[in-house]
């Protein structure tokens, strides 16, 4: 067994054991923290598909996170206020059903990623980063100035949305749902990395000229990667909003885009469990240091600097060395 696989299995074991222990000892708050970490891990796994495989440095992934959040917020708001989303041409009611909300979150954020990608992928490097950042700001200010859905204050959802057969109000059950999603997406990510698309995308990151000389379009490969990536981060946004039963424009903020990026970098860019390790460490530090000092972000910055300077593979790289070649 490779060291990376051992690391991944250990991380998985912790994701199961810690909340289970918290459940047994009645530490509900720990379960909430773990749910937060798992959702952040999911959002960052989305970014890792674009960044790690496709080399797309997006500083606008909060767009998708926010869209997922507002997909949940808007659908649940209409359901709890018994008003339809629209009456024309057909009446579309709101919903409190998670599967429907997830589907909408995934589709709308994928569509947004497609549109953003069509524009942003005309550029590369710093310009690409700037355009994604600019889209983030556009969505942020749009959300602030949209009074129908809470404007700057955001909106609260009274009761967490439901999932058939589960009581999502019980923290451990909601945690189970989020963890299940994370596992499904990690499985998908692992398959994707070895698939034909993954192979071509990997090459498009490293040598776009080469990809073109074999008759493939590197920009189209990256566009598809961005769409998949946005959809995953959008799903995470819907779960995050459900965790807090609250959405606000901060879900679109550039700080959040930056945090998603930080999860990936701390954990290890392009490493399957990098986003998981990064998000868990972030949430743990936020909780432990945040209680001691309001300036805990400074320590996070020091850690980030250390990892970027000395441990290029992030946490996974530090534990497991350089990535093995996929077989």
């Amino acid at each position: 067994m490779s060291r990376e696989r051992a690391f991944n299995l250990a991380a998985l074991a912790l994701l199961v054991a810690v909340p289970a222990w918290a459940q047994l000892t009645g530490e509900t708050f720990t379960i909430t923290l773990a749910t937060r970490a798992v959702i952040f891990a999911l959002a960052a796994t989305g970014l890792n598909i674009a960044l790690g495989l496709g080399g797309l440095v997006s500083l606008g992934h909060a767009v998708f996170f926010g869209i997922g959040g507002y997909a949940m917020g808007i659908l649940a708001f209409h359901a709890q206020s018994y008003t339809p989303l629209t009456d024309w041409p057909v009446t579309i009611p709101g919903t409190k059903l998670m599967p429907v909300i997830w589907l909408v979150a995934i589709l709308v954020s994928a569509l947004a990623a497609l549109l953003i990608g069509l524009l942003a992928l005309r550029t590369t490097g710093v310009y690409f980063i700037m355009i994604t950042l600019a889209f983030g700001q556009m969505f942020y200010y749009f959300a602030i100035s949209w009074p129908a859905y809470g404007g700057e204050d955001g909106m609260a959802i009274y009761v967490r949305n439901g999932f058939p057969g589960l009581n999502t109000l019980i923290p451990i059950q909601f945690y189970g749902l989020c963890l299940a999603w994370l596992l499904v997406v990690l499985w998908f990510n692992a398959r994707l990395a070895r698939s034909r698309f993954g192979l071509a995308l990997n090459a498009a990151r490293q040598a776009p000229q080469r990809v073109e000389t074999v008759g493939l379009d590197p920009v189209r490969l990256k566009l598809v990667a961005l769409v998949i990536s946005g959809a995953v981060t959008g799903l995470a946004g819907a779960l995050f909003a459900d965790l807090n039963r609250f959405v606000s424009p901060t879900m679109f903020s550039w700080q959040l885009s930056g945090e998603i990026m930080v999860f990936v970098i701390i954990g290890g860019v392009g490493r399957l469990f990098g986003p998981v390790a990064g998000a868990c460490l972030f949430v743990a530090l936020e909780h432990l240091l945040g209680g001691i000092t309001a300036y805990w972000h400074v320590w996070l910055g020091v850690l980030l600097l250390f990892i970027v300077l000395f441990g290029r593979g992030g946490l996974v790289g530090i534990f497991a060395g350089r990535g093995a070649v996929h077989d």
Partner: protein
Amino acid sequence: MTDPVLSVEGLCKSFGALRATDGVTLDLRPGEIHAIIGPNGAGKSTLIQQICGGLSPDAGRIRFLGADVTALPVRARARMGLARTFQISSLAMEDTVLQNALLGALGAAGRPWGFLRPALRDAGPRTLAEQALERVGLGDVAAVRTAELSHGQRRQLEVAVALTLSPRAFVMDEPMAGLGSAGSQQLTALLAELKADAPVLLVEHDMDAVFALADRISVLVYGQVVMTGTVEEVRADPRVREAYLGDAP
């Protein structure tokens, strides 16, 4: 006479005041190796770039397999069977040798849209990739990370990727660049075999290789073709001896 596979007519390209390609006309006929030689900065790579679609010419036409491809992008020409190797290796360095060859095979098949099944389990493209690696002599290092290959092996891999495209014409920019004499001899032998697959337009500085391989040679100086002829004709031409081969007349 059979129609040329590839032909270039009156091609011009300027960078500011510099005429890097100045009215170039040449063609590549079935079954031949047509070498292009010329001093550094003569415009060889610029010409190759235009033939493959990476640069668009200011004037002139490029025909491939009877079709005007002047306005087509790189990947469309590649899909028609124009296989190029680079002067400076352009490979996915973090990937294995086999993965690089497989990329060519997937490109040739136009099928990069598989999301779940492992690419290496695709029997068709994989066989194609492995055959290409065997042919260039990289069969034993298929599982090695490309970054760990020697310079010469990378040049061989460039050729292997080109081979997976089942090409109708090869366009090679200095495949021997940086190879030792043993390496160039090996690659010379390989190129001599490739001619049977498809004709080769070969830019090369290594005169031993050019004289051993070429059926025809065009001499490019300051963006212009100063002569095209057989090896004997080119060797005997005083202008070439003076300007390029460095011999006293």
